[in-house]
C-alpha cells in the first residue's frame, strides 16, 4: 500500500495520543454535566478548572481570562461581534487586515450589514501589515482592531506587539487571531499586550470543535451565545469537558516541547528548500521572516496549483493549494491577491505545511513527487 504523507498541518493536525487518552474518561465514565450540583459533577468541574489553569499558563494569562469556545471561528466571531454589539448605537468602525481568515473577514462583513464601517489594512509583498497604516486608519469610532498573529496561507508573522501598542496609544481594543500560531511559536499575552486572542485546539494536536478566546481582565466582553451561566455567564452551552481537557493536555505538551519541535520542523523546512534547489525546481517562496516554522507557500510560474494538489494526492501526499477550481475558473485566494502576486504565480501556488510528525524521508518524497508533477 502507498505510504500516506500528511503535509497539510496548517489545515489541521493529528490528535495527540496522550490528549486522546486523557479525554476518554470524560466521555465514557465521568460524563456528568459540570454545571449540576450533585457530587457526580465535581470531577468534570474540577477538570475544566484545571484545564483553564493549564491553558492560561501556556500563554501567560490568568485562568479567568480564558473562555472556552467551539474553536477559532467562534472565538473570532465573538471578538469582533462583542466589540460591535457593545457599541452598536455608535456605528462602530472596525480595522482588520486584508489577509485575515474568513472567520474575521466575514464577521466584519456581517457587521457592515448592521451599519458598521470596516477598514482592511493592506499588506506588503511579504504579507506584513504596516504599523503606520494602522496608525493613520484609526478613527474616533474605531471599536476594535484585529490583526492575525500569523497567516495561515503564507506563514508571515505580524508585528503584533507594535500594532497593539499603536492601538493602545489611541485607546483602542486589539484582538489577534492566533489560531495558526498558538502551540507553534511562543505566545505571551502579557508581553504582546493584546486585549483578546483567538485559538483553535485542532491546530495544535488537540481535538476539533474546541478552542478558546483570551480576554484580558478589564476588557468589556459582550455575551455571544445566550443561554446558561457557563463561562462566567459569557458563553452559554454545556461544556465539552473531554475536548477541553484534550486541548489543555495537547497545548501543554506542545509548549513544553516547543523548542525541540521548532528545531525539528525548521530542519525539515531547510532540507525541503535545499532539495528544491538541488533538483533545479524553479519556485518563488511567499511570505517572509519571521514566519511560522514548517509553513511553506510556494509559487510555480505558469503551473496549476490545483493540478499539483490532485497529482500529489494520487501519490499519497496531502498538501494544499492557494487557488481552487470554482466550477469554471480558478479562484485565487484573497491572501495571494493581497500580496499582488501575478496571476500566473498565484495560480501555481501550493502550501506545504510540515509538522512535528513529519520526517526527513517525507520531505524527500514530497520533493521527488513535486519534481515529477511539475515536469509533466
Amino acid at each position, binding site marked *: 500500500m502507498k505510504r500516506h504523507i500528511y503535509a497539510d498541518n496548517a489545515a489541521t493536525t493529528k490528535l495527540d495520543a496522550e490528549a486522546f487518552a486523557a479525554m476518554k474518561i470524560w466521555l465514557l465514565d465521568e460524563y456528568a454535566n459540570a454545571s449540576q450540583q450533585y457530587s457526580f459533577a465535581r470531577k468534570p468541574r474540577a477538570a475544566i478548572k484545571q484545564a483553564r489553569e493549564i491553558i492560561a499558563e501556556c500563554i501567560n494569562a490568568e485562568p479567568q481570562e480564558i473562555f472556552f469556545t467551539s474553536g477559532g471561528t467562534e472565538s473570532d466571531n465573538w471578538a469582533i461581534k462583542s466589540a460591535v454589539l457593545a457599541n452598536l448605537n455608535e456605528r462602530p468602525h472596525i480595522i482588520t487586515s486584508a489577509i485575515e481568515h474568513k472567520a474575521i473577514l466575514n464577521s466584519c462583513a456581517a457587521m457592515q450589514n448592521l451599519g458598521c464601517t470596516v477598514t482592511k489594512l493592506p499588506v506588503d509583498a511579504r504579507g506584513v501589515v504596516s504599523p503606520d497604516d494602522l496608525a493613520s486608519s484609526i478613527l474616533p469610532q474605531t471599536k476594535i482592531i484585529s490583526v492575525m498573529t500569523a497567516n495561515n496561507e503564507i506563514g508571515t508573522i505580524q508585528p503584533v506587539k507594535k500594532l497593539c501598542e499603536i492601538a493602545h496609544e489611541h485607546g483602542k481594543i486589539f484582538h489577534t487571531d492566533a489560531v495558526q500560531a498558538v502551540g507553534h511559536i511562543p505566545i505571551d499575552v502579557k508581553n504582546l499586550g493584546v486585549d483578546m486572542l483567538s485559538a483553535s485546539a485542532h491546530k495544535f494536536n488537540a481535538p476539533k470543535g474546541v478552542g478558546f478566546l483570551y480576554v484580558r481582565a478589564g476588557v468589556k466582553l459582550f455575551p455571544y451565545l445566550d443561554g446558561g451561566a457557563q463561562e462566567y455567564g459569557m458563553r452559554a452551552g454545556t461544556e465539552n469537558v473531554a475536548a477541553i481537557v484534550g486541548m489543555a493536555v495537547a497545548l501543554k505538551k506542545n509548549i513544553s516541547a516547543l523548542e525541540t519541535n521548532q528545531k525539528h520542523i525548521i530542519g525539515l523546512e531547510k532540507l525541503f528548500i535545499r532539495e528544491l534547489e538541488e533538483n533545479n525546481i524553479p519556485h518563488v517562496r511567499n511570505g517572509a521572516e519571521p514566519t511560522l516554522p514548517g509553513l511553506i507557500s510556494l509559487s510555480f510560474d505558469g503551473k496549476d496549483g490545483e*493540478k499539483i494538489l*490532485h497529482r500529489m494526492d*494520487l501519490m499519497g501526499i496531502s498538501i494544499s493549494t492557494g487557488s481552487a*477550481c470554482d466550477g*469554471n475558473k480558478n479562484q485565487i485566494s484573497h491572501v495571494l491577491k493581497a500580496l499582488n502576486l501575478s496571476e500566473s504565480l498565484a495560480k501555481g501556488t501550493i502550501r506545504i505545511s510540515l509538522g512535528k510528525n513529519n520526517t526527513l524521508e517525507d520531505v524527500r518524497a514530497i520533493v521527488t513527487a513535486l519534481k515529477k508533477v511539475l515536469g509533466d
Partner: protein
Amino acid sequence: MKKKLCCECGKALIKDEAALCKKLLGTDTDEFYCIDCFAEYLECDKVDLEIKIQEFKEQGCILFL
C-alpha cells in the same frame, strides 16, 4: 469533434477520460490516456481516478460537463 484516442493503447476515449487528462495534465495537454493507461502512467489505482472524476463532477468542474 473528433474522438480522442489513448496515446498508449489507441482506444477511443470517453468524455470523462479526456476531461480527467485535462484536469491532471493541464488543459493544454496533447497527451490523452484511457483510464487504465492513465492509472498506469500515474502509478495509482484506477479506482482512485474514478473517485476523482466523481468528485470533480460534484464540484461542478466544467471540464466534466
